[in-house]
């Protein structure tokens, strides 16, 4: 579904990604772990071109999205993204947040979009918050709404950029539960996270990144129980 070939990203002289090759299959759950500054968020943000790669190629559903003149907006419609800081739109109600993109893209009528939004809100347990504004909600609720907002576009893949890192500890669980259920429904997911429990439980494949490279990858069992690289072993010793 997503193929990445020799991806490089520099910020000025700083090399953040040093050549990444990856292939993500439909339905696969890929979890990216690694120390801060390892380039994992940048890698994720390159996948929907929020960061423009310095060199390399990215293919999504057969089309090269790094090609010049590609309609990136059309591609992003099929890639949902969830941010660390939620980034809900504070001037819109929950319903407004969720229906804005489908209505603006004319994918659905307002009524259809609202009906769909209510279905999704019910799935994450927040149907009664449809008329609330983001500021009235807890962090965990906001992040669940942010997931719903991305899902409202019916994306083929969901990108999660440290979705629980800005949450109070007691709210992490409710967001992870939503993500687990999404995984069970067969969504293709790429998740940057520090939640090792989630990585182990949900991930089909775990990538350990350091220094702008994928240092080691494998099943959760391979990575967490039998890491081969010293850097992986060192990192896991610190976080587990």
């Amino acid at each position, binding site marked *: 579904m997503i193929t990445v070939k020799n991806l490089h990203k520099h910020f000025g002289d700083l090399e953040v990604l040093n050549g990444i090759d990856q292939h993500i299959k439909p339905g696969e759950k890929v979890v990216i772990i690694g120390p801060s500054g390892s380039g994992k968020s940048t890698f994720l943000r390159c996948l929907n071109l929020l960061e423009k790669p310095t060199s390399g190629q990215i293919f999504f559903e057969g089309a090269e999205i790094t090609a010049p003149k590609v309609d990136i907006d059309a591609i*992003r419609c099929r890639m949902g993204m969830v941010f660390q800081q939620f980034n809900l*739109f504070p001037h819109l109600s929950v319903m407004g947040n969720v229906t804005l993109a489908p209505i603006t893209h004319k994918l659905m009528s307002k009524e259809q979009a609202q009906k769909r939004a209510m279905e999704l809100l019910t799935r994450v347990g927040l149907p009664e918050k449809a008329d609330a504004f983001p500021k009235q909600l807890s962090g965990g609720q906001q992040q669940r709404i942010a997931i719903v907002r991305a899902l409202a576009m019916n994306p083929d893949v969901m990108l999660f950029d440290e979705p629980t890192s800005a949450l109070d500890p007691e709210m992490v669980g409710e967001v992870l539960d939503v993500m687990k259920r999404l995984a069970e429904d067969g969504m293709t997911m790429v998740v940057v996270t520090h939640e090792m429990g989630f990585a182990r439980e949900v991930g089909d494949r775990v990538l350990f990144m350091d220094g702008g490279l994928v240092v080691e990858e494998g099943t959760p069992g391979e990575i967490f129980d039998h890491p081969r690289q010293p850097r992986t072993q060192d990192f896991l010793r610190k976080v587990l």
Partner: protein
Amino acid sequence: MFSTLLLGAAEAVSSNIFDQWWLAIKDKALAGNLDFWENIYKEIYQNVLYNNRWMNYLRGLGITLEVSFFAALFGLLLGVLLALMRLSGVKPLEKISGVYIGIIRGTPMLLQVLIINFGIFGSIAIDRVIIGVIACGLNSAAYVSEIIRSGILSVDKGQTEAGRSLGLSNWQTMRLIVFPQALKTALPALCNEFITLIKETSILAYIALTELTKAGDYIRSKTYSAFTPYIVSGILYLVVTGVLTKLLGKLERRLRQGDNR
């Protein structure tokens, strides 16, 4: 001189109570020994009541409001355009906007008005109200654009990223997500700019547009009262800016309540 200026009053038909009150103290006035309150009445009578002179102020006020309203509208539209140009990331547009703002903010408004009146429209017969709207609007736009720009910059980058990640175009993200939030932040400064604009239209007196300041000045040229006509104009400015401040304060409070919904 004093008597010539009273002449008009003497000839007026004593048709209303104000004229009668004046006639009652007129001889004392000519003799120059009015008491404090009589003196105040004389000033008001000559500068406001006599010969429907109050109409001059109201006509002036009307023109001030007319020029201010259309100049504010023009300035807002052009200001938003300049701000978007400045933030467009397109170098020539940024440059044009930056140079425009630099020139407008770096030169006196009076000079700009004179250049537009005598330089640009010098040989064209055109209503001075329109010249006033253009001059004040062009000036205000530079300040408005900086207010709007800082409003847009105050919106978190994550908002743009969230919009773009949903497949919205740059313009859709700006229009639907960034701009509404920017406007709310910019509103107090924007209100200040509108109030400033109302006061600054007084500069148009210099090109003989009979707005509120010029109206007061015109009465002074008739009555030679140094204070009263300007004070009447001043009170009218205060009423307008006062009402506007109140209204905008209400609007602001309403928007802020929205935060806590």
